[in-house]
């Protein structure tokens, strides 16, 4: 730090004056940095506020009960978001059911069951590196992957229209088929791929934040690794894990690209009846509305964004409730 050097060879002043000047400069720098930080924070807040206000002003008049319970329509005043809303809830709930256990499980393996053998440790490192890298893959890539793996299942079980393996008939709520086809389950599993890295990495961070002294204490009492994880580490890490899950589910509910590849449907008047059923999601519906030539449809899109935000916030509220419950109990 050059500013901390008290002697300035070219300056004729006495060291004392120099000190005072240097101090002044340091404090000025401190103030400037603080200003820059708060400027950044305020700028992002202001932009968010502008966007939200614009959306609310545009979409508010179209909002109403009819918007929530009606299917899409070519007439902006009759257009509703019902099938997309229910479709989004289906897909995100199914996604959570799969992504959270798998993600948290992976995190526990990586953090709590560290292998001792060098070869296994190498494997561990490879898995860790891959997960970190996967977090940066564009979601459309997952969409294409999901298309091959879940929708078509590499063509191993025939085409999606003539599945070779079924349970029940398409009328039953428990209907299942292989390959999955372009249904809710394929969409949810694809979204699971998109959010898994986020879930795993945040769960790992949460587990890492649990002090090692606690672990050693539990193990010293003779507990097995599983007992330690189930009774101590995991409960202590739940608040952090829930925070990560909030972020993950927020991403899942806002994703349009993978859903466009997997489902591709925008006009649909019915809601899913089983996991293999056709569906659409809100981001797709909003994307379509906002690209229409008619200005009224842009207002409908804004109303759709408000509903999406509301759903997102209620998902998050639920997660925060769970988090808080655990936080207070543990203290």
């Amino acid at each position, binding site marked *: 730090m050059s500013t901390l050097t008290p002697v300035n060879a070219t300056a004729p002043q006495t060291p004392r004056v120099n000190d005072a000047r240097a101090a002044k400069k340091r404090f000025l720098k401190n103030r400037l940095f603080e200003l820059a930080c708060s400027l950044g924070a305020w700028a992002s807040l202001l932009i968010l506020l502008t966007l939200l206000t614009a959306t609310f002003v545009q979409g508010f008049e179209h909002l109403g009960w009819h918007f929530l319970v009606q299917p899409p*329509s070519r007439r902006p005043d009759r257009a509703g978001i019902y099938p997309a809303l229910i479709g989004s809830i289906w897909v995100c709930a199914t996604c959570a059911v799969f992504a959270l256990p798998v993600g948290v499980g992976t995190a526990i393996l990586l953090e709590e069951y560290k292998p001792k053998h060098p070869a296994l440790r190498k494997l561990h490192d490879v898995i860790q590196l891959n997960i970190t890298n996967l977090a940066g893959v564009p979601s459309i890539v997952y969409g294409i992957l999901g298309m091959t793996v879940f929708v078509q299942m590499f063509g191993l079980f025939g085409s999606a229209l003539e599945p070779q393996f079924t349970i029940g008939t398409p009328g039953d709520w428990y209907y299942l088929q292989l390959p999955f086809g372009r249904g809710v389950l394929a969409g949810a599993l694809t979204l699971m791929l998109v959010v898994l890295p986020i879930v795993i990495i945040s769960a790992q961070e949460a587990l890492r934040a649990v002090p090692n002294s606690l672990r050693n204490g539990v193990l010293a009492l003779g507990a097995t690794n599983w007992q330690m994880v189930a009774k101590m580490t995991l409960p202590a890490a739940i608040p952090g894990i829930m925070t990560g899950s909030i972020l993950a589910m927020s991403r899942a509910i806002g994703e349009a690209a993978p859903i466009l590849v997997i489902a591709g449907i925008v006009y649909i008047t019915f809601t899913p009846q089983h996991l293999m059923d056709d569906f659409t999601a809100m981001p797709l519906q909003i994307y379509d509305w906002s690209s229409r*030539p008619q200005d009224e449809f842009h207002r409908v899109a804004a109303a759709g964004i408000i509903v999406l935000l509301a759903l997102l916030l209620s998902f998050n509220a639920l997660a925060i409730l769970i988090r808080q419950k655990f936080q207070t109990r543990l203290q």
Partner: protein
Amino acid sequence: MTSNRVWSVLGLVVMGYAVTLGTDDAFAAESSKATAPNAASLAGVIRIDGSSTVYPITEAVAEEFGQAYPRVRVTVGISGTGGGFKRFAAAETDISDASRPIKQPEAEVAKTNSVAYIEIPIAFDGLTIVVNKANTWCSDLTLDEIKKIFIAGSAVRSWKDIRPDWPDTPLKIYAPGTDSGTFDYFKEVVAGDQAAIRSDMSVSEDDNVLVRGVEGEKGGLGFFGCAYYFENKDKLKAVAVDAGKGPILPTHQTIEDGTYAPFSRPLFIYVNAKSADRPEVKAFVEYYLAHGPQLVEEVGYVKLPAEITARALKNFQQRRQGTQFLDDRGEKRHGPLAEVYR
């Protein structure tokens, strides 16, 4: 104790899931009961996918069709013309929306999968060239001038470069995304198969962005589907196109009768021939042809002349298979719709 809490969280998630599942089933049962008494007996599923340009028309038809046949479940996707044909050729969809005729490789794939299809033109989309409202000098462009502006390597930088008596205002071009059918069509008309379109343009997949771009730039020039112009007539000025027969402005009239050449393109639906034998699909296509023209205008496109619609209906009823836009050797057939489509 603590592990119980872990389980209770899991249980909560599963329970929440079960609740959405349960209520949704109940709601669906209720709504189908409500419509059941006056429902036509026809039931089934019709899967449609393809061009997002054709989507508003198919959506409108599906909406009206749904009123008349409430038990038929219609889904319409927006995978794009190419993406739609891919699914169509794999027999995944019953009907494919297309903003251009089927291409030779796509027809080839359909053939190997033994998917036969019926080609039906449903509307015209006029490509409109627009300028800023404050642009007082440019009211028409000849086809040669358009080529001069858009071909790759063009030296046109300001309006003065197009016609010497126009002002030296910088030219700023707004164009649709290079993946879109609109761009494809424009490129084919302006540059043909050999040349390319210049790349120093502001490009957006969202045509509304192009509208705003031209609206805010005095020297702006853009092109997109006519629906976006008809909606923004008060903000933009359309340029008449002179293809040798004098300048012609894009209107419903000139696009429909084909005088707004060569920038009006036909839009199509392709019907899987096997699906067409299913009563619900047959009813849907016939409904499309009967009510399409009126709905087409409502969503901002231009209807076909009655004669071509009648031809399309006849072709559908006779189950005339294949495309008329490829000749026997698989070469593309060019020309106005009325001449190519028989």
